[in-house]
């Protein structure tokens, strides 16, 4: 088990190196450079800037310096926010994105399980039809449309109430977090609802439920102890992959709700050719996802005896 974990870890490090290299060369292949600005920079001023950022060195030297710095956990200084280290930017903004992501996942899982169970219980009756209609909407409408509509509805609700129930944009308090994370979690919630529903129906039909029922166990007990518990399992297994979907969806929600998350910064950095921020963010996200997968895999090995680790 320990050996397995070490092996996976080494693989992970190599993968991160691959991501870093791919990012570095993709970045340097893009035309335009971070030192340009709206107003033209005089050649002598430009030379000063290049020297300051080490861009006057040949590319392989830059690559080597970049790898060395990265290995020591230093992503350098942002080109556009010249007084901020990329590490600081990542730390401050990832916190926000992570909060948003965690909440969205929780909303999605919570909602998905609840609605999924409800639809299964009321199969082919009104609640089922209504919820499944919503689910279809959730799956088929693009996220940015939801985000814009979500913000608009918040304005209308506050207008109607006469006070600010949920803030329209911004970040910081609990109220700020609720609407964006719900919007972000919506797609995943719809997906999980479907999964939960089919899972519930499948379990309802299985032998052990039939046995439990024939033994005369109370219905609520069957529901709680047998049906829900077993139906939730497949939902939990897909939660892992959903994390990736949610982090990427975060871009749009952060843009629309003016949330200072990392996704929004990445888009800005790309516009600005801010090399260090782009590379830092990509490598950080890549490494984060890679190690999340490893952790989940290793944990599964502990939790589920059926999973054999090679």
């Amino acid at each position, binding site marked *: 088990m320990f050996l397995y974990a070490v092996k996976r870890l080494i693989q992970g490090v190599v993968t991160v190196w691959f991501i870093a290299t791919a990012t570095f060369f993709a970045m340097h292949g893009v*035309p*335009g450079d971070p030192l*340009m*600005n*709206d*107003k033209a920079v005089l050649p002598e*001023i430009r030379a*000063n800037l290049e020297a*300051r950022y080490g861009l006057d060195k040949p590319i392989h030297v830059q690559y080597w310096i970049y790898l060395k710095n990265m290995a020591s956990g230093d992503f350098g200084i942002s080109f556009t926010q*010249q*007084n901020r280290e990329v590490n600081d*930017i990542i730390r401050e903004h990832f*916190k*926000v994105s992570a*909060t948003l992501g*965690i*909440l969205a996942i929780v909303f999605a899982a*919570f909602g998905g399980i609840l609605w999924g*169970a*409800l639809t299964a*219980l*009321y199969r082919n009756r009104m609640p089922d039809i209504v919820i499944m209609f919503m689910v279809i909407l959730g799956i088929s409408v693009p996220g940015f449309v939801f985000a*814009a509509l979500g*913000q608009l509805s*918040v304005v209308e609700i*506050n*207008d109607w109430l006469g006070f*600010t129930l949920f*803030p*329209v*944009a*911004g*970040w*910081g*308090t609990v109220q*700020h*977090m609720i609407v964006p994370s719900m919007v972000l979690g919506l797609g995943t919630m719809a997906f999980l609802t*479907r*999964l939960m529903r*089919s899972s519930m*129906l*499948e379990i*309802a*039909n299985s032998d052990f439920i039939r046995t439990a*029922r024939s033994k005369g166990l109370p*219905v*609520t007990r069957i*529901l*709680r102890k047998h*049906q829900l518990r077993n139906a939730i399992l*497949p939902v939990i297994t897909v939660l892992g*992959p959903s994390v990736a979907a949610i982090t990427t969806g975060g871009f749009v929600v952060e*843009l629309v*709700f*003016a949330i*200072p998350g990392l996704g929004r*910064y990445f888009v*800005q950095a790309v*516009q600005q*050719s801010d090399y260090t921020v782009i590379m830092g963010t990509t490598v950080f996200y890549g490494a984060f996802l890679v190690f999340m997968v490893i952790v989940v895999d290793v944990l599964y090995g502990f939790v589920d005896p059926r999973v054999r680790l090679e």
Partner: protein
Amino acid sequence: MTEIADTPSPDVPGGAAGTGLDIRSLGQLLYMGAIGFGALALLLWALAQWNEGGAGEAVDAVTGTITLSLFGEPPQLDSTRGTDAVSFNILGHTMEGLLRYDADNRLVGGVAERWQIDDAKATFWLRPDARWSNGEPITAHDFVFAWRKVLDPLNASEYAFILYGLKNAEAVNRGEMPLESVAVFALDDRTLEVHLERPVPYFDKLVAFATYNPINQAFYESREGRYAADADDLLFNGPFTIASWVHGASIRLEKNERYWDADRIRLNAIDYAYFTTDSNAIINLFKDGKTALAGLVAENLDDALQRRWRIKRFSDGAVFFMEFNHREDRLTRNYHLRKAIQVVNDSPELVYRVIKLPGNLPGASLFPVWLKGVDGYFRQEYPLADPPPDDDLGRRHLATAIDELDLDGPPTLVMLVGDSPTAKKQAEYYQNVYKQKLGIDIKIDAQIFKQRLAKMTAGDFDIVMAGWGPDYDDPMTFADLFASWNENNRGRYSNAELDEAVDIARSSSDPATRMDAMAKVQQILYDDAVIVVNYERGSVYVSHPRLKGVVRRAVGTDPDYTGAWID
């Protein structure tokens, strides 16, 4: 890729259980739901502890606070290195240079109480009561230090060129002379003397620019390279100080009690609680009473009218134009081709039908209407004749151009534009116009910011949609744009006659001679179809009804809240 499992399982009557028991199942579910909800609330609370922020109402008369949104995190609050509008705006509220603009846009004393400028030198006498936020007096040495810093090659300031009027400044910035040779001297703590390389008739307007701000040397050095990186890493001398700065999220300014003119300041705090460029988000914040000022876009005007908002307008001073590529190997080097494009251009149609936002003005001249001339407005003193579009004339010019260039028919031209929705929209409009009127095919090359700049610099375009905003309040900030030596002359236009006029305009000390020369520049740009001016940018905005005294302007801090108050 998501796998969606919805296996139609063989029918089980009534789903999980028979009818009649559903209520209890439902109760069970709700019970579990309630527990889940409690856990969720706990999680929310925990996450809220982890994050910081939160903002108040748009205006708070009790605390004298207004809440606003900002386009983004200020990238660089070190005045020697800042280049962008957001940083300059924060600097405009927290710092003060030798001179500043008052509410009626007149130049008044800032740190300097008196000044004298002639052809060879400028002298500034500083106020005795001007202080840094740590209580130290502001001295002439603080200016000497800051200006040397700007010109220091190691500091790599992009706005160093704005100090090139100082004697030896350019050579110092090139690294050819030592820093000490910059001709700026502290005669004593309160007298600053500047020697000029050549007469700079608008030097008073230049020193109002943020790059000319003072910096306290001892403080700067004590931060060890972290100057301006955070609220604690700055020393202020303006109306406000930065009380807190959550990077990427918010900045809060508070009244600077040590400011020499603190009585002028009536707001206690300005809370920039939102960083966003999304106009919809800003307007939604305004609707919700969370920001005191919001710019409107054409798409929101009807909504604004319906809500009976009091809409105001202003000009931000910028001019937008299509710039031709005048390099040797380009078709657009041909005069008749450019002229054809110029004479069919219908800038009123662009402004009134496509942009649709009041405040924008159809344009013909590179010099916008708000610029001052000798006595009054430059454009009223030197009007530029702009005949209405003439499609027949355009086609005749095009025919000549096709003939001269030995083409088979109307050419295909590449139009380089930015990736903003407005830029794309305008490009699409022009594409259609030139196709319809001249048969010219325009290929739109929409590029994100830095990529567009790279292509502009490399000359990889036929036409580029460009804009120019003023740095200082003198026609000169526009006039030298197409001088052959200007790096911003991306089309590499070169005309000795224009260069000569620019030279007169920038160094003559007689206003009439200068303005005559500017008028000549204006005429050459039009006659030779160097550029085709599209519009002068303006905007409309709404502000909280109780917020008064906000100044919007083309040059200087905009929007300026230093004189604002809550009614």
